[in-house]
């Protein structure tokens, strides 16, 4: 009997260890170099065929979860919901951690209500970094079966679902997420995600004379510069990022990290 108990305890111990091991940042996916076609033609990096080259990198398999972020905050109390500096995050920072009965319920949900500064700090703390816009879009341009999602006619339709269909609203646990071609989970249909250069579009707007990207943000002519004017989901991500500032925290905005190949 005693022996059995020992075994059970060991077994639980093993699960706990394994569980925390599974949450380790080794849980990343290698993305080989390649190219993708961005929504808008911009910058000097655009190749003749309108695609952008992206080097290989590791990316988090899942968005950063509440429990992940909680561990970070324990180590770096200056990012605690009570100690953070208001210039680095607005008052809504980690607001969803207040007024909950038990943290267990949201352990495996993607962390939201985090500012760019907080997300950036989290990634740096783990020796990684936030993905660039191009890296994120490159990985997210794959569907389930197809490396280039747009080769699948139902892809855009399914993607729009999250944005428009109220039934599929809301943040879900990482266990419920689906993965894409690369085995990366929850890129679409769960939360928006920070990228390191989320406001690069605004910076490009200094070229006001040329009409540039500022125009595409509100004009009916939006589509004239877009490579694929039917890609409404991409327009939404584009518009969403454009509305952000680095201290903003939002109920549906989380993040994941990437790592360079050494």
């Amino acid at each position: 009997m005693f022996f059995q108990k020992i075994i059970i305890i060991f077994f639980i111990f093993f699960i706990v260890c394994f569980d925390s091991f599974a949450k380790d940042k080794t849980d990343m996916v290698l993305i080989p170099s390649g190219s993708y076609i961005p929504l808008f033609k911009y910058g000097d990096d655009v190749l003749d065929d309108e695609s952008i080259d992206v080097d290989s990198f590791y990316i988090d398999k899942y968005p950063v979860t509440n429990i992940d972020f909680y561990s970070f905050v324990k180590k770096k109390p200056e990012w605690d919901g009570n100690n953070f500096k208001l210039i680095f995050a607005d008052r809504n920072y980690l607001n969803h951690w207040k007024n909950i009965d038990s943290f267990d319920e949201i352990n495996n949900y993607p962390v939201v209500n985090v500012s760019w500064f907080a997300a950036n700090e989290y990634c740096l703390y783990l020796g990684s970094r936030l993905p660039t816009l191009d890296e994120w879009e490159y990985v997210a341009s794959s569907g389930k079966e197809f490396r280039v999602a747009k080769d699948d006619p139902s892809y855009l339709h399914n993607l729009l679902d999250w944005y428009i269909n109220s039934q599929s609203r809301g943040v879900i646990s990482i266990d419920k997420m689906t993965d894409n071609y690369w085995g990366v989970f929850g890129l679409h249909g769960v939360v928006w995600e920070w990228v390191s250069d989320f406001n690069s579009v605004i910076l490009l707007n200094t070229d006001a004379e040329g009409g540039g990207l500022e125009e595409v943000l509100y004009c009916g002519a939006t589509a004239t510069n877009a490579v694929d004017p039917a890609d409404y989901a991409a327009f939404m991500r584009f518009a969403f990022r454009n509305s952000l500032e680095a201290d903003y925290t939002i109920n549906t905005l989380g993040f994941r990290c990437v790592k360079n190949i050494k």
Partner: protein
Amino acid sequence: MKQISNFFLKSCLIVIFAFMIDGVCAKELPKVEGNTSFAPDVPSPITRNHPAYVVVHFECVELVKELDNGVKYHFWTFDGTSPGKMVRVKQGDTVEFNLHNHKDNKMPHNIDIHAVTGPGGGAAVTNTSPGRTSIFSFKALSPGIFIYHCATPPVPLHIANGMYGLVLVEPKKGLSKVDREYYIVQSEFYTDSTFGKKGMHNFSQEKALMEFPEYVVFNGRVGSLTDSNALIANVGDKVRLFVGNAGPNLISSFHIIGLIFDKVFMEGASLVNIDVQTTLIPAGGATMVEFVARVPGNFIIVDHAIFRAFNKGCVGILKIIGKDNPELFAEKK
């Protein structure tokens, strides 16, 4: 010495200039709360005879509402209704517009007000994250009845999901006195289900691109202006309708069965046409029509592209109450 006096001269000029600027700012307009209403009501006429600094608040809300009996749709709205509030200001007013985006929304939103002279009609400076507020001001230069709508990319989707309404800029001397005013916006909904089929309808991008709506409606749903929601007037009333067409695609052939518009302010502007049977309202445009309610009865409001009225929901009723006038209309047995 010369350098010093030069310096003094420049300083003085700067100070004087600063006072001048201050003087301009000091000529402050009286601050008033915006005059707004939900459809089909119209905000009351403006009684002041001077321009004001008008403060208006809108909140973007994403919510599920009925598009038809038993048919639900996930609307994106200004203030929870489609159309959003009608705003009434006066030519020469400065309007401070506060756009709040509710924190539980998923989308960023902005606003393009057609009464604005400035980039994007305000959209260029109001792309607002959930939980945030954007503020801008504009001077109402031109009188007329104007559409406003959300213009965040993808723009057609924000319009198709219900984000629009009307702004009335009264001319300086105001509008003529009438007995009744009503606010109507026509728009289409592109759903992945079929007209009248109970349950949740979702946006269909395919149908929107084909410009093939399941629903064409007044004031955001089938039945918004029928039965107990019918518009009311008494015989003898002077009636004014402010009618917008949000589109996003169709042009409205606006008509009321059984009466003739005494006056149509064409395209919502200053040019008046008289004795009009059917008037065109472009997508992203509006009109103002006036008539006297002369004969009692139910007068059916339609888009005279008549399949839309018969099969897609674009019907309203104006109920005129009062004594028969057999000289004008009588049934002969």
